[in-house]
Each structure stands twice: as structure tokens, then as C-alpha cells.
């Protein structure tokens, strides 16, 4: 007699239980990884957020003509080179006229960042008419003051063990009462290069360095990688030799990045004598590193183009090259670009190979071209993380946030490109 039962049995129930178990394990795994991600973002952003603000002190600066421009020429270059230290000190002294001893005055003058004078020099250089006038200006405070304003100085500590002394704290508190000290958005962080002083250091140099390196990397790795993939996939006969090449490409993709750095060191610097520490060499090394990734992605993309499309074109009398570049490559392009951008995102986060070719140097200037000395975002993070100054702690985290933002942007761009190109059948 046939079995018409529809109700559940022990066997079926065991299968359902296994399914439910698996589902829960999956959910747990997703939750765990999400949790780690959130933890990472949280810890980095709580630590790094502070760096986006910078304490400024309001001072009444008198651009004294006798001191800055005794010849009354209003020459911008000369004004940019003048000594602004006395007028800044004067302004501070006017705020606290009761400070009389030399020693106390010196610590009073230390409230302000040593970079404040450069800001004034820039202002006067750009606008010589300022000379002779008096301006109410917000100037950056020193790193110690900044840390205190951000609540990162332990005042309960014995005075001897603190860098910020009691009298300085008293002045800051007076300024607070007079509303002449406050945190402002830290534009310097995004417009300056590296510096020995935390409050003067910015990420722009590293950002441009990374950008230029990636530009070099892309303009070499993308065409070479795509053409290699096209040749191997569409033109080369499958022989033992092409098999060997394929194995080697796959192996190269797994080679530790520092090895590529050593290669760059000995070839680009050693043999070709290219300029050390430059985005040019950095980009070349990163290109070597991303090339296998791009080739593998591009080959996979080409392989996913159905053969019937190639047959259709060939059957119409299109040549091999026409078939490839009119049909196969455009159809594979979204996949190729996605692979490339993911490879470049990997290159953006790479530190080790850049250390080998000298991009780890302390560089103050923002690079202007691919042959200027430069550093890169991850290397900058590495350098700041290694600095003893307390002010660099939050900058390290802030730089990590900038790097992550770049990565997210690149990945979003990859998604956008794929959507966009795929729609265009």
C-alpha cells in the first residue's frame, strides 16, 4: 500500500533541526564579524575624532610696521620672511600683563603653537596691507594646551610629572572665562604636510603621496594587466608554457608584499637609479604587486563572457582582434574594473614595500609631482604611531579614519562602476 503520510517523522525532524542549527551558526558568525567591525570603528573614531578639532587662542595682533617692514616697501616676499615672534609674544603679554619674570614669560609664550608665526607670515605675505593694522585673530595653541582642552591631561598628577604646569593651567582657565580659547575645526590637518609638532602636522602630504602612487600604479598595472589577460585568454594557444605562466601568476599573487619592495629597491633604485622615496617608484612597486590580482580578475571576467558572443562575431567575419575588443572586452570591463579597484584598494593600504624604497622618510613638503619625495597614508600612520609625542596618538587614529574613508570610497566607486557599466548592455 502506498505511503500517503504528510505529517512529520523523526527523520524529517532531525533534518529540520540540522537546518535550524546551521542557520543559527551562520547568524552567529555574521554577528561576530559585524561586532568586530563595529568595535574597530568605535575605538578608532573615539580616539581619532579629537584630531579633527584643534584648540585656538584669540589674540589681538598688532602688525607693527617698525618691526615687520622698516623700509615701508610692503614686499610680500620680505613680509613672509619677517620675524613675527616678538609681535605674538607681545600680544600674549598684553593679555597677562601681570607675568613679570623671564621664566614665567617664556612658559606663557609656550601656550601658543610655534607654528602660529608661520600662519601670520602667510597672512601678511598674501595681504601686505595688514601691516600697521591690528587684528583679532584665532591662532593655534600648542599641543600641550590642546591636550588639556581635550581633557587628556591628568591634573591630579604631581606638577613635576606634568609637562603643563599649574600656572599655565591657570592662564588657560582665565582665557576660558574670557572666551578667548576654544576648539575649532582643524583645517591644518587636511592642508599641511607632516611636522615634528603634532598641532602643526597634517595628512595632506601623505594623501597626495598615496594618490600619486596609486595613479602611477593604475596607469601601469591596468593596461598591462588587462592586455596580459586578453592575450592569455583570447589569443594564446593553451600549451604547457601558458599553463606555466598561469601557475606563476597565481603564485605571484600570493608573494608577500615586502618581497616586491625588495625587488623595487634593487631594480628601480639599484639598476635604474630612479629617485628614492618618490610616488613614481612607489607606484611601480605597487603596480608589480597588483598586477597578478588584476590579471586574475580580468581573466575571470573574460572567461565569464559567453562563447556564443564570440562565435556570433567571428561568424559575421569579424577578425579575432575585432571580436575581442568590440565584444569580449567591453562585456568583461565591469569585472575587470572591479578587480582592478579592489587590487588598488589593497595597494592603498600597503606599507611594507614602500618602507623598502624609502617612502618612510620624514617629509614636510606636500609633493607636487610623481618625482617629489613623498610618503603615503599607511606609512604616515606607521610614523605617527611610532612618535613619542602624545599629540600624535589621536592623529594616528584620525589618519586611519581618513585611510578607511578612502577605502570605502574606492569600493563604492567599484560598485557604482559595475552597476553603471552593466546597465549599458
Amino acid at each position: 500500500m502506498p505511503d500517503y503520510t504528510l505529517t512529520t517523522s523523526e527523520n524529517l525532524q532531525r533534518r529540520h533541526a540540522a537546518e535550524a542549527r546551521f542557520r543559527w551558526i551562520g547568524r552567529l558568525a555574521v554577528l561576530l564579524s559585524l561586532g568586530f567591525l563595529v568595535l574597530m570603528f568605535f575605538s578608532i573614531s573615539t580616539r581619532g575624532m579629537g584630531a579633527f578639532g584643534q584648540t585656538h587662542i584669540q589674540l589681538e595682533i598688532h602688525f607693527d610696521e617698525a618691526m615687520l617692514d622698516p623700509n615701508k616697501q610692503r614686499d610680500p616676499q620680505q613680509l613672509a620672511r619677517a620675524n613675527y615672534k616678538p609681535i605674538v609674544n607681545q600680544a600674549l603679554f598684553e593679555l597677562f600683563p601681570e607675568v613679570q619674570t623671564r621664566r614665567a614669560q617664556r612658559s606663557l609664550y609656550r601656550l601658543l603653537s610655534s607654528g602660529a608665526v608661520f600662519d601670520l607670515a602667510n597672512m601678511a605675505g598674501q595681504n601686505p596691507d595688514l601691516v600697521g593694522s591690528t587684528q583679532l585673530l584665532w591662532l593655534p595653541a600648542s599641543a600641550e594646551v590642546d591636550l588639556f582642552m581635550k581633557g587628556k591631561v591628568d591634573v591630579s598628577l604631581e606638577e613635576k610629572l606634568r609637562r603643563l604646569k599649574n600656572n599655565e593651567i591657570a592662564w588657560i582657565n582665565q582665557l576660558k572665562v574670557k572666551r578667548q580659547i576654544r576648539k575649532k575645526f582643524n583645517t591644518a590637518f587636511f592642508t599641511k604636510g607632516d611636522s615634528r609638532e603634532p598641532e602643526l602636522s597634517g595628512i595632506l602630504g601623505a594623501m597626495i603621496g598615496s594618490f600619486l602612487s596609486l595613479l602611477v600604479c593604475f596607469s601601469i598595472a591596468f593596461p598591462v594587466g588587462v592586455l596580459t589577460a586578453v592575450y592569455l585568454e583570447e589569443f594564446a594557444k593553451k600549451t604547457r608554457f601558458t599553463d606555466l605562466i598561469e601557475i606563476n601568476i597565481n603564485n605571484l599573487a600570493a608573494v608577500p608584499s615586502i618581497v616586491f619592495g625588495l625587488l623595487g629597491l634593487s631594480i628601480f633604485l639599484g639598476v635604474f637609479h630612479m629617485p628614492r622615496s618618490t610616488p613614481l617608484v612607489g607606484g611601480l612597486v605597487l603596480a608589480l604587486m597588483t598586477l597578478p590580482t588584476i590579471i586574475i580578475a580580468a581573466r575571470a571576467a573574460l572567461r565569464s563572457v559567453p562563447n556564443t558572443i564570440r562565435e556570433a562575431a567571428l561568424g559575421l567575419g569579424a577578425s579575432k582582434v575585432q571580436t575581442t575588443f568590440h565584444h569580449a572586452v567591453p562585456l568583461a570591463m565591469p569585472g575587470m574594473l572591479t578587480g582592478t579597484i579592489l587590487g588598488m584598494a589593497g595597494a592603498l593600504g600597503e606599507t611594507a614595500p614602500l618602507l623598502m624604497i624609502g617612502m618612510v622618510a620624514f617629509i614636510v613638503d606636500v609633493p607636487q609631482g610623481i618625482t617629489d619625495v613623498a610618503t603615503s597614508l599607511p606609512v604616515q600612520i606607521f610614523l605617527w604611531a611610532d612618535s613619542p609625542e602624545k599629540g600624535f596618538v589621536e592623529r594616528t587614529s584620525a589618519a586611519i579614519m581618513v585611510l578607511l574613508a578612502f577605502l570605502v570610497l574606492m569600493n563604492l566607486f567599484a560598485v557604482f562602476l559595475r552597476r553603471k557599466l552593466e546597465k549599458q548592455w
Partner: protein
Amino acid sequence: MVMGSIMKIQKETAEPANLSLASSGILSAQNVDVFYGDQQAINNVSFEIPENQITALIGPSGCGKSTILRCFNRMNDTIDICKVTGDIRFAGQNIYDPKVDVVALRARIGMVFQKANPFPKSIFENVAYGPRIHGLASSKDHLEEIVISSLKRAGLYKEVADRLQESGTGLSGGQQQRLCIARAIAVDPQVILMDEPCSSLDPIATAIIEELMESMKQNYTIVIVTHSMQQAARISQKTAFFHLGDLVEFGDTEAIFTNPIQTRTQNYISGRIG
């Protein structure tokens, strides 16, 4: 104009074998063997395909119909492991002659594949691609004219007239197949090879395509692979029956279906093998 260039090629390859052209068809195969690696797919096949007629290739699955069809426009070149020996001629010229340009050959001998394979581009672009790469159109208007007349001859124009810029892959299966036919005739070939063009179509779409072949017959030589014996009987003038890589019987369709000589043919058309 196209005929002119063919004549030129003929003059250049003045070989004694041209003699056979007078008596025989536009396409001829002599002692053709095809191997996929070590495996032989076609055994010593010889036959002639007459001009401006429809020739049907029938036989059970895997007997080598597609393989022999793809020999005529050298599509087998694209398969690395495929090796073709023997003598295959188009209008008297050996198509494997080193002097023959495979691009020119495929412009003369078009192909419609078993599975409709429009390019993932607009309907217009699908048809315009061939004329464009061969430089057949003198101007934009001329190109449009070629596209529209090809679509008309393929019996598709009425259905797509107002959406030429839409994707060719958005059409129905039957429409896609007719688009592929339009694409093939847009390059103005002399021969069209069709590999089971109706295998995935319903009877109505099939009827449209059969009608189309009937009307194209005066201008084109058509070689069609089909699994439907009724279709072969309906539309073709010549029929070739293949079995296990052998050409078992070749002759007038009438004769093959009413009075087959070989027992294997008898068995196949009566449905005992296949």
C-alpha cells in the same frame, strides 16, 4: 560588387580543381575527416551543396552535423583541439588554402547558430555590426537602409520598427533568432549555414522562419541542420543523412524520404534510430 570580388579571387587561384565547379555545387567537401583531439567526429565525408537551394543535414544527436556545418566557414578553427583534413571548396577554391582570408570567407558564408546569440547591444547595432566592420555602408543613411532591409527580409521589421534602439537580448526567442538571421544577411553572404535555427521555437515562430528560408532561397544558398524530419522534407531540396560521423546517404529530399537506399536511413526516417 560582391560577386566581382569573388571572381577576382577565382582568377588568382587558378587551379585545375576548378573544373569540378562546372558540374557541382557552390560548396563541396571531398574526403573530409574531422578530429577532436584523438576522437574522430567525421569519417571521410564527400558531398556537394548546390547553389540557391536548401540543403538539409539530418541525423541523430552527436552524429557530427554541427561539426561538418562549421567546417564550411572554418568556425572549427576556433576550437584548439579540432583538426580538419580533406578538401573543402567554396566556389572552387580550397577554403584552407593559405591565401584564403578567413574573414573574407566568413563574410561570404554566414552562420546562424543553434542558440540565438544576439549581441548585448541594440537591435540596430546587432544588424549594423557586420556591414560596419566590412565597410559595406557608404554613409549613415546607407547603413540604416541596409539594417532596415535586412530586418524586413528576416521578417522582423514590423515587430521592432519602433524599438530599434532597445536591447536585442530583450526580444523573444523566435524574434532573437530572426534577428540573428537579419544580422547574417546584412553582410550579404552567398551561403547561410543554419544550425538548428528552430530548435527552441514554437510552431508559429518555426513557420515564420521556414517561410523566410523559402523566400531567401532565390538569393542565397542555405544549409540547414535540423532534427525535424518534417521540416527537412518541407523546405529542403537536398538532404544529407549523417550517422556516427558517416555520411550515409545524400540526394534529393524527395528520394531520401520516399525511397531511401540505405537501411540506416530507412531506420532513421521511420524513427527506429535516433
